Structure formats: structure tokens, C-alpha cells
């Protein structure tokens, strides 16, 4: 089977975001960028399935500007076989991204598509479900465990109540939680080898899908700041404050 894994380049999760003064967005110049964290789990899972003999080929896809290729390169360095970069100027909404990915799926014909459960920049958590919908495929969202059993995929999902197990037919779309696995680091020789692997570039508008924005971003602003509090020096003082000052216990 062939696995398509979808990766996004985002501001690194350790960076303290700064909102632009004019309300048009957040500062991205000279800011450290990385692969969206759960996408690393998606790549790791695909590579593990390949190592276990369950998958033949792993193709990493990204949508973004020229630099977005870095995320595909990183996936290649940990074991993906090939890359696809859908080049786009500016950003694309989840629905548009799902439409682009559908085109790539039709071309590559994978039996499994793995994505992260959420992009940590726009925090929408939509693209995997949207892709599954327009392909007419089942979805396994927020996956913390996957097991391929013949023609079905068993997925353990992290839900508010605890854990849920489902079985979905293949082909399927799965969105990965950070607890799915422990992503490996790329070794230097593998980073060198990855440089020789190919990344096919596709221009988004050549795919002929409607990716026009439906949502208008009116403004981006900082959330209200919390006022700093006080230091207490003992547990007794803490309990007294909670009882008599904050009146919460």
C-alpha cells in the first residue's frame, strides 16, 4: 500500500507569537519555522508502517510557498520516499487545502492519508475531515494508535470521555495525535541521502480547483493580558487568601 502524509510549515511551537501593530496578522519575519508537531507523528507512523512491511511507499506532501519544501525535505530525511510540493502564494483555507489534497490523492492513489490532528498556527482542526468528506472516505480523527487489519484500519481515538476504538475501511484518512508515536530524529547520513530524493513541484492554480477565500480576516489582535498576582510564602497564607480574599473555597 501507498501512504500519503501531509505536512505543514508553521511557526515553531516554542516561539512567543507577536501580533502586528496594524492588526493584519502575526510577525513571521526572522521567526523560527518548523514542521507542525503532529505532522511529525504522521510521518513517523507512515515510516513505521513501511518498515513493518505494511506499506510500500511513503509520499510526503505540503502546500505552501517555496520554503514549505523544508518540511517535505525533513520527512524525506526520516524515511519518506518522495515529496510533492504544491506551490501557492499566500495561504489557503482548510476547504481549499482539502480540495488541493483531493487532486493529489487522485493522482497518487494512496490507500491511506495521514495528517496532523491540528495545525498549531490557525488551530482549526479541519483539513483531514474535509479531505475524507470530499473523497467519500472514512476518517479516524485524533488517533493515538493505528493497526492495519486486512482491509480495515483499527483506530484508537482520543476523545473527551477517554478513548474510543473504531474500525474504518481502507482507503481512509487519519489525523494523528502527538501520542501516536515518538518521532525520530534524522541522522546526518539520512539528511544527505534525502537531498537526492525528488520533490515534484506542482503549481496550485494548475490543479484547477477553487481555492478562493470564503473567510475575510478583519483583524488580528492580542488577547487581554492577565494582571500579575502576588507571591505567598506559606501554604497557610495561600489557604487564607483563597478563603478570605479570593473567596473561592
Amino acid at each position, binding site marked *: 500500500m501507498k501512504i500519503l502524509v501531509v505536512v505543514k510549515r508553521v511557526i515553531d511551537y516554542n516561539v512567543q507569537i507577536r501580533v502586528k501593530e496594524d492588526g493584519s496578522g502575526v510577525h513571521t519575519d526572522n521567526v523560527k519555522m518548523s514542521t507542525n508537531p503532529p505532522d511529525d507523528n504522521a510521518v513517523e507512523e507512515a515510516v513505521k508502517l513501511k518498515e513493518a512491511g505494511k506499506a510500500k511507499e511513503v509520499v510526503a506532501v505540503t502546500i505552501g510557498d517555496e520554503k514549505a519544501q523544508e518540511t517535505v525535505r525533513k520527512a524525506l530525511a526520516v524515511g519518506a520516499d518522495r515529496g510533492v510540493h504544491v506551490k501557492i502564494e499566500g495561504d489557503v483555507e482548510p*476547504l481549499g487545502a482539502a480540495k488541493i489534497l483531493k487532486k493529489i490523492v487522485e493522482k497518487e492513489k494512496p490507500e491511506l492519508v495521514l495528517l496532523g490532528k491540528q495545525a498549531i498556527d490557525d488551530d482549526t482542526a479541519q483539513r483531514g475531515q474535509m479531505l475524507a468528506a470530499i473523497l467519500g472516505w472514512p*476518517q479516524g480523527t485524533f488517533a493515538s494508535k493505528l493497526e492495519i487489519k486486512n482491509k480495515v484500519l483499527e483506530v484508537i481515538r482520543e476523545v473527551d470521555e477517554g478513548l474510543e476504538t473504531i474500525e474504518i475501511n481502507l482507503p481512509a484518512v487519519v489525523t494523528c495525535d502527538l501520542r501516536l508515536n515518538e518521532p525520530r530524529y534524522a541522522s546526518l547520513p539520512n539528511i544527505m541521502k534525502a537531498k537526492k530524493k525528488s520533490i515534484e513541484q506542482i503549481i496550485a492554480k494548475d490543479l484547477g480547483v477553487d481555492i478562493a477565500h470564503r473567510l475575510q480576516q478583519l483583524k488580528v489582535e492580542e488577547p487581554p493580558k492577565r494582571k500579575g498576582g502576588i507571591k505567598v510564602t506559606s501554604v497557610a497564607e495561600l489557604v487564607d487568601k483563597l478563603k478570605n480574599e479570593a473567596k473561592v473555597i
Partner: protein
Amino acid sequence: MAVLLIAEHNNSTLKVYTLNAITAASEIDKEVHVLVAGNKCENVVKEVAAVSLVKKVLHSESSDYENFLAENLSPLIVKLAERYTHIISSANTFGKNFMPRVAALLDTSQISDIIKIESSDTFVRPIYAGNALVTVKSNDKKKCITIRPTSFDPAPSSGESASEKLKKGTLVEKVEPVAVPNISKFIKREETKSERPELGTARIVIAGGRGLQSKENFKLINDIADKLNAAVGASRAAVDAGYISNDHQVGQTGKVVVPDLYIAVGISGAIQHLAGMKESKVIVAINKDGEAPIFSIADYSLEADLFKALPEFLEELNKLNTIQK
């Protein structure tokens, strides 16, 4: 036109966040209709009917809906969507699972996790783990929206008993189930049973992090939770290390909580954790590292070793004559 809200329930009782979503829906349009799809879920229909803001309950019965598989629910919601301008649910793992599927089938851009309604097409939502707020205007004819439950008050019951309201007629409409694709199957759900209040709605939350060091040590947290009638939360690090199950995780990729009192113990305060608790009314942090970032947002900071502080905390609580429940 009207707003269609998708109720979350377990076939016997309504999940509370549906009430918060009803409030949000009524801010968009007074004509709030609620879909209760499930298997033998009459009791849920009654519960929803008793909410005064609800104008109509759509009731669809099928064993295909029993476990709320997104593949099965979506065709029903898409069909009903013809009659509505907005489709709404809560932005928890229930709504996050099916709503994007519905939105894509309707060819509309979903607006996730809104915290404020400016008008029927303009909404505010957090991005970057809550470090920025974006105001978005939707130009789609139909809007699919998930709401952050903790940003809206739960809708009150009418006081009038549901059966009285039901007698008035028109309130409940039976809806035929729609054919499902049969591509997914529910196997099982492992729920963590607890006598304590639910994490999402508890008045007090006490949360432990990696500083707790083991599953056994979480007893120190649990004992205080019992004393305060609090829910127990955790950082991702504590869940990852196996100290506690995933349903306790607070943060960007866990639950969002807004209790009156949040007590963070042995938690450093990474932005991904703060994303889930920084709106709490009063925040207490107990940490042995005076430089821990959690102190910068805490109302009361105690720099101490938790293994000493927590037993003392319990002792001090035991000394109090009364504790608010």
C-alpha cells in the same frame, strides 16, 4: 431562516456543552432548532425540549446514529442543512469530528472554536494557542460553526416541565434517518469513571504536571480534589508519562477549562498548557522553580516543593470549618 444545532448526548442524557452552544446559537438567530440524532434517545429529546431558547427539536432515531460516527451523522445533517443558515455545535472532540465533514460536503468554510459573536456572519476565534484573536467574516451562504463552550453561558431550562411544553404540540419533529455509507464501525469506548465533577464544567480544578513524578503521587492531587469537590486536570507531559489518562489533559491539544479556581501543581506553564486554562478566574501555581513561567499568570504563586506543600495544603483545608461546594 433558522439555526440548526447538533446536540451532544449519550442516548440517555444531554451533554452539558450543548447548553452553551444553544446560548451561542440564540445570539445568532432566535429561531434555534436542535437535532437529537441517536438510538433510543427520547429522554434527550425531553431534556432539550425543556430548554426555553429551543424553538424546535428534530428527533432522528437509528442504530446507525448510536455512536455518532461522523460518516453516519453527516448525510443526515447535510440533508437538514437545506433549511438552515447556520449549523452549530460545540468545539470539543464531538463537534470537531463531524463538523468539518459536514462543512466540506456543503462546500462551505468552517469557522472553528469561536469565542464571540459580532454578528450573524462575523466571529472572533483564538489562533496560535490563544496568543492572538482573529475576527473573521464569512462570505459563505451557509455557515458551519463550532463554539468554544466555556465562552458562552449554559442556556437555562424553562422551569416549565418538558412534558408540559411537549403537550403544546409542534415542538418535536420526527426526522427520517438518511442512508449511511457503511464505511466505519464503532468498536468500543473506554470512559474514565469518576465521582468527581467533570473537568470541563467543574468550579475548581487542581492539575498536576511532570513535577508529580509518578502515577502514585497523583494521590496527593486526588486527595485535595476530593476535599474541594474539584476536578483533576493534567499537563500533556503528565499524560504522556502515563501518570493519568488523556481525558484529563488541559491545553491547546486537550481541554479548555475556565473554573473559578485553577490550581497548577508541578506544571511549568508552557504556552500550550496556558491555552487551556489562562481564562480561569483565580489561578494558583505551586512550583519549586521560582522562574517557572506559570508564575507570570498566577494570582497566587507559591514557590515550594509540592511533596511538602500538598500534604500541608490538605491539612490546612481540614482545619477550615466550611468549604464551598
